[in-house]
């Protein structure tokens, strides 16, 4: 248990008759950026709210930095949170907003607050009220406020929502910097896999409150790289022959389809080798699955399984 900074154990949340989060087991190591992907209403925010101590689990538990139960509340300044909106006081300056957060946590470190504002590209001497800030600046200020108290864990709920491309890039660079320079563990949620794939090192797909799949960035790009899709009625012989050709990187999708990720520039010779050995090839296609297609396929598969129950 101590190997993980955060570990949930069958954590569940019910709202009357609706199960928002359904027995989720999640483990986060120190310094990793974990991307939680799911469509709207999938349970991302509820899960993050529970982990931030802003909602009580109906069932299950979680431990953070080795503490669990009511003891976790001691870690108030070790966890940074940005749930949906930054919660800014719009008539106040950025520095005043930072001071509010520091005071709420019982901290008095003006110089540190200035450094934090600098680190997110905002000025501590800016006299403008934050109500005049752009959405991207507000989000960056929200992240700076979440960083008050030297947190080990940063929980960010859809921080790129509503941002323009420049704003998204700003946030991405900021998160990369935080992870590299301060080794902060970041749990970030979004419904855009494409965007998270550029930042997160590990991913979890949440659907209908359940964590249906987890994979690393390498696994994600492996799933989404270019492939040769061969359809045949004789899968047994085909797979044996492919192995015989020295191809190790392939995947049997179903009874008639096999995906090959190697020797893509030698399509002709692979197919002729199969046919020469009596395997009838129905079709051959080259393709590349997008990240979003991969995400949708996982969710659709889960929806079908759920509907079939």
């Amino acid at each position, binding site marked *: 248990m101590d190997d993980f900074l955060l570990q949930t154990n069958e954590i569940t949340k019910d709202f009357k008759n609706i199960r928002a989060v359904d027995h989720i087991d999640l483990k986060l190591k120190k310094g990793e950026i974990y991307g939680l992907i799911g469509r709207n209403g999938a349970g991302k925010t509820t899960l993050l709210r529970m982990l931030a101590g802003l909602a009580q689990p109906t069932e299950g538990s979680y431990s953070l930095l080795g503490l669990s139960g009511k003891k976790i509340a001691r870690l108030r300044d070790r966890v940074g949170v940005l*749930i*949906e909106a930054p*919660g800014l006081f719009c008539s106040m300056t950025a520095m005043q907003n930072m001071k509010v957060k520091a005071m709420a946590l019982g901290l008095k470190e003006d110089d540190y607050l200035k450094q934090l504002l600098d680190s997110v590209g905002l000025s501590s001497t800016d006299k403008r009220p934050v109500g005049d800030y752009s959405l991207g600046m507000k989000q960056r200020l929200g992240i700076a406020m979440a960083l008050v108290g030297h947190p080990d864990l940063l929980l960010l709920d859809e921080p790129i929502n509503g941002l323009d491309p420049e704003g998204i890039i700003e946030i991405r660079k900021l998160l990369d910097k935080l992870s590299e320079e301060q080794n902060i563990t970041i749990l970030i949620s979004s419904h855009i896999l494409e965007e998270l794939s550029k930042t997160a090192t590990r991913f979890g797909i949440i659907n209908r409150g359940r964590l249906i799949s987890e994979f690393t960035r390498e696994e994600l790009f492996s799933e989404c790289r270019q492939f040769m899709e061969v359809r045949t009625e004789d899968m047994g012989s085909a797979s044996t022959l492919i192995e015989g050709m020295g191809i190790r990187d392939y995947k049997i999708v179903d009874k008639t389809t096999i995906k090959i990720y190697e020797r893509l520039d030698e399509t002709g010779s692979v197919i002729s080798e199969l046919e020469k050995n009596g395997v009838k090839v129905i079709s051959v296609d080259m393709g590349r699955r997008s990240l979003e297609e991969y995400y949708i396929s996982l969710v659709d598969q889960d929806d079908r399984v759920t509907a079939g129950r």
Partner: protein
Amino acid sequence: MTDFLKTRLYIHIHSRYAKVFLAFSAVWCIGFLLTMLGVGPDKRPISSAYGLWRFMDFYFSVLPVAVAYWYSDLISNRFADNIPFGSDHKLSISGLLFALLMNLVSAGGFLLYGNIMFLIPNKAVVYHNDLFTMFTLSMVYLAASFVRCILVVFLIELIKSRLWGAIFGIMCSSGLSYELILSLETMFLIATGAGSSSFPLAHSTAYMMVVTLMPGRDASDQWVVRELQVDIPVLLLRMFLYFTVATMLTLILIRRRDRK
């Protein structure tokens, strides 16, 4: 708890709400004083007790809105959503304490200013009530401000809306809730066939508790009140019970929300 109280004070000092409240209060205080000195349009002679009642009317009118901000400053903009483990009851209780403290300071300030104002020789006050009456009246107003304060906090917690808490608070302050409850009470009495009620609910509203204090019908001159018209100990006891029950109910609501 201390950290939350300091935070709330810092936010309030730097917020525009405090500036608006202070600006409006200053206009009222200066305007009232000038009226008293005889340069205003209202030159009717009054007693000091009646004058204080008229002066405090402004504070009671703006109190629901002020309380809504004092209580909800950390919650309304979702700031509290970003304080980890911040939904514990301490955050809400700090709001309650802050609202009560701010009310103590503000109501105390208004009462002090009001009492001093009536000591200045002026063209309006024709009858000066004795010090004991003025002190008693001040204490009743202070208690009344706490009653209205806790009522607004309770309504905000009950309705889960700062806006509607303030609106219903204003209704209570302006007497609208009194009229509404009185109508419901009358309907109830007619429906049940009862001729009269021994415990008129409408008269227990925060508005009526203070209004009945100052009937202002003294002989031929209705603006001169020589003595307070109600049983003060009973009135204070009713206010104390009102405050205690409303505080307990508010704390129950805070605790219930905390468990979710």
